[in-house]
């Protein structure tokens, strides 16, 4: 069996790691090899994936391995690398990281389900978060482990030697040597180990690969020992990256040798300290002289500890370096942050799902009609059906259908429902008669407008409410939160995704509905229950387009039937559906605001010019105390209506007053009916008043114009 190593077939034996096989093939790597996954001296690109520690993965037939050095960047893959990584969640009582004696003992003492993660199996713990929540790579999958307790028994790592020549190939730690004893290692010289040591390591000599180890013997003499392989032991240090990462997290504890301090070592004087960032001992001296006198500062100045192994190799030496200069104990290692191992982008994204966008019951109908679908307010909605202008005229001159099933739709009931709604809304609710509807704003405690919609009284103790499409989810929480806070006896049912809604609008809307089964159209701001084209509907008479409009709320699964029937019945009336593009023009001609588009985070009724929306003589409602104060504070800006000749400027366009910034446009459309452009915009007040003629960036005057721009008396909507 063989794999491909740097383009050459390389034999391997069963269960052999890629590194062991490549060493046996004579492919030695520069620097010290630990064969324990602690350093970055055996990295390779394996089957297109970079930063693979070849000491930890078993060789497989056909595997493509391309070596790169610790301080190099692997080549980026030219295309997708393998299948998308899979992720999963696992729930256990205890997860133990490390299958050494400490880990196995901890596992045996643990009750319930126990998961053991050990990198000798090719599995790696990558990160720990609050929970405790541990992310691991297990059998090639990204596993998010939710555990009652995380036990870290990661043991100890061997300290790599730092001396002149330590970047040469042919250096092994003591434990690495133990794993490779059956390999042909040539002349082996041991330094610092208990058995057979030739003394204390001074330097290594050779060209590319070690040829001699110079050691100081017991009498203080430096002696050169010819060698093909040098085995070095400098002691051990806790393998504590995960322990440091979990610092302060509850439910995580370290056990065994990882809790013991690092063995003392002498300060580095020559050689490579950080193989990942190619930082030498001389670099430490240089930055120290420049005043970088702390571990974190040295890290920032040299980049030591920022590379692939995240300081596993260099930190013991930097700590010794600082200790030697300060005369104090070595400083604690720096903070560890996720991830402890390199991840592919695919692994980082595994299991991540984007928030979904909902589809109304008319989604297929829109697409069949050539609707250009766009995402708006958490839903897929038709922007237009290919001809926004014709859609506009259908509303103004004939009849049109609009899908408003995205609106927030709620039902509330209960003996205290009126009192509840009186507090929720700034308008009056008690005097709303059964069968009537009222437009209302919603404020937060600061008096800021956060949503708007309709209040419809179904019975003495029952109402339906509507909210904006994008605000429905929040309003659900808002209503429930306040009902609980006030301990009101009310029931709240969010029917947003249970009901479809079609807006039948235009001067011929009523005629169409009479054809479809409506016997008597409800008056403006009234509602009724009726069967339309065989579909039971709650019909609300209102207007956002400025024309007579009837919102037909109905069961979600009947939307298509209702839509197709109305479209068929209205063919000779010139019916066509309209999308958001036309709707935005229609509503802007009427000066209707869109919350979040025309409002800012601190917009209140005084800035919006909507004082009529709040009945300040009401005893209490959300935002009233704040508005009482705000009423006394002169406003600094105001939302106003503006008009200009020609095409509509970009929404967001800046308004100028002389050379001064005067505000900006929030909504802007060319009005086909009026023949000029209409806008809403925020304008700074000058001496307490709105400047008469702010100017657009292209020099056109944006003339202050009262809203509604069209049909100010609302005759078309009521007609």
């Amino acid at each position: 069996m063989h794999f491909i190593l740097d383009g050459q077939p390389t034999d391997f034996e069963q269960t052999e790691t890629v590194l062991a096989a490549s060493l046996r093939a004579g492919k030695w790597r520069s620097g010290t090899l630990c064969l324990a996954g602690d350093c970055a001296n055996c990295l390779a690109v394996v089957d297109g994936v970079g930063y693979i520690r070849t000491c930890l993965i078993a060789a497989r037939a056909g595997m493509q391995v391309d070596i790169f050095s610790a301080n190099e960047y692997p080549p980026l893959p030219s295309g997708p690398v393998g299948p998308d990584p899979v992720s999963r969640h696992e729930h256990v009582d205890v997860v133990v990281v490390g299958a050494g004696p400490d880990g196995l003992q901890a596992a045996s003492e643990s009750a319930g389900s126990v998961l053991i993660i050990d990198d000798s199996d090719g599995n790696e713990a990558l990160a720990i978060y609050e929970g405790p929540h541990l992310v691991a790579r297990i059998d090639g999958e990204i596993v998010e482990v939710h555990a009652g307790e995380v036990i870290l028994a990661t043991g100890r790592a061997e300290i790599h030697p730092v001396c002149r020549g330590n970047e040469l190939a042919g250096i092994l730690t003591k434990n690495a040597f133990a794993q490779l004893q059956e390999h042909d290692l040539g002349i082996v010289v041991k330094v610092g180990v208990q058995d057979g040591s030739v003394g204390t390591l001074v330097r290594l000599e050779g060209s590319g690969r070690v040829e001699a180890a110079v050691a100081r013997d017991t009498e203080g003499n430096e002696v050169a020992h010819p060698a093909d392989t040098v085995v070095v032991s400098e002691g051990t240090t806790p393998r504590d990256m995960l322990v440091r990462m979990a610092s302060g997290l509850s439910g995580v504890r370290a056990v065994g040798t990882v809790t013991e301090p690092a063995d003392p070592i002498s300060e580095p004087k020559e050689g490579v300290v950080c193989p990942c960032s190619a930082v030498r001992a001389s670099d430490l001296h240089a930055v120290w002289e420049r005043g970088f006198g702390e571990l974190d500062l040295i890290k920032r100045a040299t980049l030591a500890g920022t590379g692939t192994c995240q300081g596993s190799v260099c930190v013991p030496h930097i700590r010794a370096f600082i200790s030697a200069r300060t005369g104090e104990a070595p400083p604690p290692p720096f903070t560890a942050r996720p991830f402890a191992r390199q991840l592919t982008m695919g692994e980082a994204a595994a299991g991540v799902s984007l928030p979904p966008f909902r589809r109304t019951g008319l989604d297929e109908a829109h697409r069949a009609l050539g609707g250009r679908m766009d995402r708006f307010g958490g839903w897929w909605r038709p922007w237009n059906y290919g001809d926004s202008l014709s859609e506009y005229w259908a509303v103004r001159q004939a009849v049109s259908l609009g899908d408003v099933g995205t609106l927030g739709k709620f039902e509330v009931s209960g003996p205290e429902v009126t009192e509840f709604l009186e507090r929720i809304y700034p308008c009056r609710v008690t005097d709303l008669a059964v069968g009537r509807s009222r437009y209302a704003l919603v404020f937060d405690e600061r008096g800021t407008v956060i949503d708007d919609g309709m209040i419809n009284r179904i019975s003495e103790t029952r109402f339906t409410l509507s909210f904006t499409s994008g605000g429905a989810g929040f309003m659900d929480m808002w209503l429930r939160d306040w009902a609980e806070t006030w301990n009101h006896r009310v029931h709240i049912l969010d029917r947003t995704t249970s009901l479809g809604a079609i807006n039948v609008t235009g001067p011929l809307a009523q005629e169409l509905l009479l054809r479809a089964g409506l016997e008597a159209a409800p008056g403006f701001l009234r509602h009724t229950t009726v069967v339309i084209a065989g579909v039971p509907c709650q019909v609300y008479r209102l207007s956002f387009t400025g024309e007579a409009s009837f919102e037909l709320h109905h069961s979600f699964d009947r939307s298509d039937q209702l839509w197709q029937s109305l479209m068929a019945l209205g063919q000779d009336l010139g019916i066509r559906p309209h999308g958001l593009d036309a709707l935005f023009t229609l509503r802007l001609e009427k000066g209707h605001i869109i919350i979040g588009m025309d409002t800012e985070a601190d917009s209140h009724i005084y800035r919006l010019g909507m004082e009529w929306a709040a009945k300040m003589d009401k005893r209490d409602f959300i935002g009233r105390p704040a508005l009482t104060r705000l009423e006394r504070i002169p406003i600094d800006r105001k939302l106003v209506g503006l008009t200009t000749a020609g095409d509509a400027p970009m929404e967001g366009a800046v308004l100028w007053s002389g050379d001064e910034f005067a505000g900006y446009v929030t909504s802007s459309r060319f009005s086909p009916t009026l023949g000029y452009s209409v806008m809403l915009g925020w304008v700074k007040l000058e001496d307490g008043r709105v400047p008469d003629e702010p100017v657009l960036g292209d020099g056109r005057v944006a003339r202050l114009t009262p809203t509604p721009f069209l049909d100010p008396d609302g005759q078309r909507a009521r007609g």
Partner: protein
Amino acid sequence: MVNVHVAETLHGRRIVGSPESLDSVEWPEGSIVARFAPDEVLVLGHGDIAVSDPDAIIVDESGFSGFWMARSEAETWVGRNADWEIEDHRLNQGLVASIPVKLFVAGDEVLVIVATALAYELEARL
């Protein structure tokens, strides 16, 4: 083998009422009673339902879709896509692949309930 699941509209009634009144309801035999919250229930099946709370909201409901899957398959699916696990009580609720779902556990089978507005997305993410 890959199981293809297609969500179909679930017809039933949705009731919001006082928890005490819902606790005392005798649900129609053979119906599936998914208690979304102490004060809210989705009942799939036929038959009369009497709720003692005079202000209870009782509406026909067709805004949910669903499909059955083996519990073992559901556990694997949830394990792949959610940070919670299916528990033995009758209704599990939460995000799976970022989609809010309700899992009604009935022995070795699970009824996956999702708002029809998101059913297409759920099918795509399965």
